[in-house]
């Protein structure tokens, strides 16, 4: 068996194939991201019994239903608190939140902020498609200023979140941004993050041709991916000023922060128990 074939079979064993075909539109970037994640898990040789995947609500939220490991499809915005509870009860496990921008940064925004501040030992893969896809394309917390959605038919007046910027400002030890066009870099980044500790955040800029692209002159998946390709600039360790992500403008990608040795919340908690018992 070729190595490629071996990886493919291993990735397949991590999917609940009986639930396929998936609900995602053809050309959607969520599948690409899930594939990159599962390949990184295979490469990292993580025992599927030691991995839990937690999703919230939305198109990306459906991922929890397709992975063949312990998974939670939680309520809207609550993927992170569920994950925090899981990690606390089972500190030996890898806990990965795989959810969308609307879920993690609007209705669940407060959980993201506080979990990052406390440095919980979880990996957050945040698929950012700039919109609420599942409900049909409403403006969300990451919709670029000026972009068109069903609830901003003449352009969005809001300023969007800059996700890695937010994570780093809260002390997250690992923060990266990639697009679905950066398949290998994304996979490598997830692979690295799986070996790190603490609150790790990887933003994946992903195409939603169906309800975002359509309203923003990028009707098909390829046009969106070409847009990612044309506008992306890789800049590791970018400063806050450099981490740009604008409508029709630059997409700065890369690993913006990767530091080790910052104690996680779980470690600090164990430490307190140890001291109290003395």
């Amino acid at each position, binding site marked *: 068996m070729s190595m490629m074939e071996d990886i493919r079979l291993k990735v397949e064993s991590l999917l609940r194939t009986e639930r396929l075909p998936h609900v995602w539109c053809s050309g959607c970037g969520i599948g690409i991201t899930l594939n990159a994640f599962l390949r990184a898990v295979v490469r990292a040789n993580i025992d599927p019994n030691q991995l839990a995947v937690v999703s919230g609500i939305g198109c990306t939220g459906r991922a929890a239903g397709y992975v063949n490991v312990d998974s939670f*499809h939680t309520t*809207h915005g609550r993927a992170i608190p569920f994950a925090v509870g899981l990690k606390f009860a089972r500190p030996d496990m890898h806990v990965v939140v795989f959810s969308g921008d609307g879920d993690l940064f*609007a209705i669940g925004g407060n959980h993201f902020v506080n979990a990052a501040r406390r440095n919980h030992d979880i990996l957050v893969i945040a698929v950012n498609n700039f919109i609420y896809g599942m*409900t049909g394309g409403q403006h969300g917390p990451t919709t670029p200023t000026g972009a068109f959605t069903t609830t*901003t038919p003449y352009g969005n007046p809001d300023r969007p979140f800059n996700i890695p910027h937010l994570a780093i400002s809260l002390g997250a030890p690992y923060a990266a941004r990639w697009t679905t066009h950066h398949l290998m870099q994304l996979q490598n980044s997830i692979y690295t993050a799986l070996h790190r500790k603490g609150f790790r955040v990887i933003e994946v800029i992903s195409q939603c041709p169906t309800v975002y692209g359509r309203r923003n002159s990028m009707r098909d998946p390829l046009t969106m991916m070409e847009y990612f390709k044309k506008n992306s600039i890789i800049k590791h360790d970018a400063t806050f000023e450099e981490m740009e992500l604008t409508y029709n403008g630059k997409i700065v990608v890369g690993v913006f922060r990767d530091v080790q040795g910052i104690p996680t919340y779980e470690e600090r908690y164990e430490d307190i128990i140890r001291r109290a018992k003395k």
Partner: protein
Amino acid sequence: MAKMILTGNESAAWGARLSKPKVVAAYPITPQTSIIEKIAEFIANGEMDARYIRVESEHSAMAACIAAENTGVRTFTATSAHGLTLMHEMLIWASGARLPIVMSVVNRAMAPPWSVWTDQLDSVAQRDTGWMQIYSENNQEVLDSIIMAYRVGEKHNILLPTMIMEDAFILSHTAEAVDVPEQKLVDDFVGEFEPAFKLDPQDPGGFGSLIMPEGPYMEFRYKMALAMDEARKEIRKVTEEFAEVFGRKYPGLVEEYRTEDADAIMVVMGTIASTAKDVIDALREKGKKVGLARIRYFRPFPYEELREIVKKADMLGIVDRSYTFGYGAALYTETKGALYGHTDKPIKNYVVGLGGRDITPDVLVKIFDNMLKIAKDGVVDREIEWVGLHGDERWS
């Protein structure tokens, strides 16, 4: 008056548009989203003169409506299922602050397991929040109820919020012909919003301050209870007036269908009523004397009407599309509570259609047959029965 082909959600958006709220704050959730999308479009096109706030959750949507309404303007929002239950805290605030906010609710099942189909637990679980609750049977009623809800709620002796329910997909995404009333008529009917109190820099006041147990907390709540009783009268009056202006007559709090000389009467909320009416017509042709009471207002609860209705039949079958775990579904226990001491006729609870399971005429025929047997025998076979569970021979 213009006839349009509208879904339940479009009807809700039109009801809101015609009532001219000044602030709409909302968050998307299936199967409600098309209401707030339509409203966003109306506002963006200048067809509605209102501010639209794109908030980050339903909890914030209600908080924003509360604050806006406190400044003395009319507000509107819409939600469903998990969005509604997330709002719970703010719902109680809205009624406690006596703000006549109007909201559309698309009834959808609660998770887990995830389901987007119809089920009334989401709104039934808001029974104690101090909101008035209307359950619609068709899209016309969705639209008209919004207009009437502002009219009733904004009266100074009432000042209570209202939620108007539509069954997911059965109404929300199904189009039918709807009369969209003329703006002028609605303007005259609803009138300008005149707040009883509001945030005003010229006349400063504090809202929501702390009260000690010996303070008037209990009196505030008692006034709310009285307001709900006033609303009961006002609803009957406003539906009469609505009929005069718009030519459509709604039955106040409860609609009765062929209850005269009935042996058994089914009591329901929502779209089951339409199917039941057809079934009743068919059964009546076969000489089976059955009728229907459709509860439009679950809050305030129409206890007086039900005490009259029970006199007309030998038994009541209460059909609930939700369940209150521990004992009986809400419409059943409420009805029984209202009738205690007023009747000793048999009353049975049928639990149906949870998570959007289809309620076909066949199912209702079987329920009616069971009801007629109870009416004849004078004994209830089972107090509470879940209808159509997988593998249950009785209903297959």
